[in-house]
């Protein structure tokens, strides 16, 4: 059947409607291709890794690099260090930061103070790490905490603390005061109201804040690089970096370590997706 002019017009319109989707798919391809490439390198036999033409699909997959990196190599130890460090510094930051945030959110503060506390918290977050690293390095050296997980955990806790206070304060402020008051009239003490009514209500925010702390500690590189220079205290990013700057790079094992390093972050990010915008904009945009 011959198409009418209206039919052609309709078809063209449909095709035009696809253009944005094609653009979006292209953007996703660009965003994911490097990640995918890293994944393939970690799964390829060494002979295939840099073959020409590049093999995107259909190569022989092997897990030898993962075995190489984690079973025999030192990446397992780095991994463990990173996990410990992220967990401890996050817990510590939450333990100190959450009560502080509650206090800031619920009790009346002089208006000026309020601004100042806020500015101060944000400023510490904005400080370029390289600015504080020299004195921190010298201080930790004096305290004999260089090259130790303890030293790094303290630094990360201090790093995450302002963020915890800031974010949790926002979440606490979102719980209507009346709910807490209702609980107190119903017979709770203030602590009881906080524990049994307010905390369950801010739980999603608390979880998101924890995830952000975990990711920051997990991804952090500069402090770890400078404050831990021995094998025993290295974190995963530092471990990977130390391999890159060697002359003979074992790309397979390193890619494998890289893939393993990014998995927790992606899992966490998926868990905290709802609060991603808020966390990344330091609470300024409530996404």
């Amino acid at each position: 059947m011959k198409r009418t002019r209206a039919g052609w017009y309709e078809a063209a319109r449909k095709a035009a409607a696809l253009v944005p989707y094609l653009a979006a798919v292209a953007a996703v391809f660009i965003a994911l291709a490097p990640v995918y490439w890293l994944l393939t390198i970690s799964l390829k036999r060494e002979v295939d890794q840099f073959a020409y033409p590049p093999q995107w699909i259909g190569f022989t997959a092997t897990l030898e690099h993962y075995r190489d990196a984690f079973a025999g190599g030192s990446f397992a130890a780095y991994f463990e260090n990173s996990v410990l460090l992220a967990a401890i510094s996050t817990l510590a930051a939450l333990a100190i930061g959450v009560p502080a945030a509650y206090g800031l959110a619920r009790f009346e503060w002089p208006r000026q103070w309020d601004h100042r506390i806020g500015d101060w918290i944000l400023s510490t977050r904005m400080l370029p790490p390289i600015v504080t690293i020299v004195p921190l390095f010298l201080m930790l050296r004096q305290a004999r905490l260089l090259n130790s997980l303890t030293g790094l955990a303290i630094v990360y806790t201090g790093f995450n603390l302002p963020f915890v206070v800031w974010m949790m304060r926002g979440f606490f402020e979102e719980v209507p005061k009346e709910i807490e008051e209702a609980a107190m009239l119903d017979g709770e003490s203030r602590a009881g109201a906080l524990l049994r009514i307010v905390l369950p209500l801010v739980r999603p925010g608390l979880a998101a804040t924890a995830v952000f702390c975990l990711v920051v500690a997990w991804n952090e590189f500069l402090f770890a690089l400078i404050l831990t220079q021995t094998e025993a205290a290295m974190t995963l990013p530092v471990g990977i970096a130390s391999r890159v700057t060697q002359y003979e790079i074992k790309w397979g094992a390193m890619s494998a370590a890289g893939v393993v390093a990014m998995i927790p972050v992606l899992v966490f990010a998926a868990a905290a997706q709802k609060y991603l915008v808020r966390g990344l904009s330091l609470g300024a945009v409530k996404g």
Partner: protein
Amino acid sequence: MLEITGITKRFGAREAVSAVSLSACAGEFVVLLGPSGCGNTTLMRMIAGLETPDEGTIRLCGEDITRRDPRERDIAMVFQNYALYPHMTIAQNIGYPLRVRKRPAAEIEAEVKKVAARLGLSGLLANLPRQLSGGERQRAALARAIIRRPKAFLMDEPLSNLDARLRVEMRAELKHLQHELKIVTIYVTHDQAEAMTLAHRIAVMRDGKIQQFDTPANVYQRPLNTFVAQFVGSPSMNLIQRDGVILGVRPEDVQLSASAQAGASPGRIYVTEEMGNETIVVVSDGSSQITARCPAGARFEFDSTVWYRFKPDKVHRFDSSGARIPD
């Protein structure tokens, strides 16, 4: 029963409540009526223990509770936005005050069922607050307040978030419930109709002070000053400046006629509003406007001339400061 003496509360330099004294008898329904910001909510929050007064005492059943923790006062409160716990089901919400008091689970369940049935919530007990309509949330909040039979009820504009029809319905429901429970109730509102219909006594408040504390009938018929006179009653009382005194006339005490009559003054029809059961007529006499309440069916053309007259025994007189001049 509930006795408030010389309560003052300051926020910074501003006095939100100034030396207020007030008492409510057992089982009494007292309404704190006033525009927003007049201090009635603050006064209520001090009774609840959510704010601490700077001066004065609050006694409940003979005990001084001025500085007690909210939870030690045995007072229940219904909040304007209901303040239901969003993460608990309706049953858990209603039962919460008993759970805090560590009553046995079986007793709590039975009580919750009883109260829920009383307020028509039986089918909603497993739902979360956000799944309920405004009226249902309102009743859930009420249920949570009455379940433990407190010594006093506080209600902070509990009906203001409901639509007009539901508000009237709940108003009647609330009044009957309070009659049944016979628990002293303090109720904050800025809606004079709510105050008139619910209260045994109304405390009209303005700028942190009580202007008049009396029965609805007395507040309506013998307002102590022009503020009370205008705040209570709808449409508002007409106030007319004449010879250094202020005359106050309720719209129903204004009589209109189409022809000149003895003692009547002429004016022009500004607007007429048919209400169905009555007609509100606004007359302009050049310098001021006078509102009259006429029987249904009264018809006047825009801008036509009418004669108005005040029922002589119904004219209130206030001095230039606004205070009532004794008859």
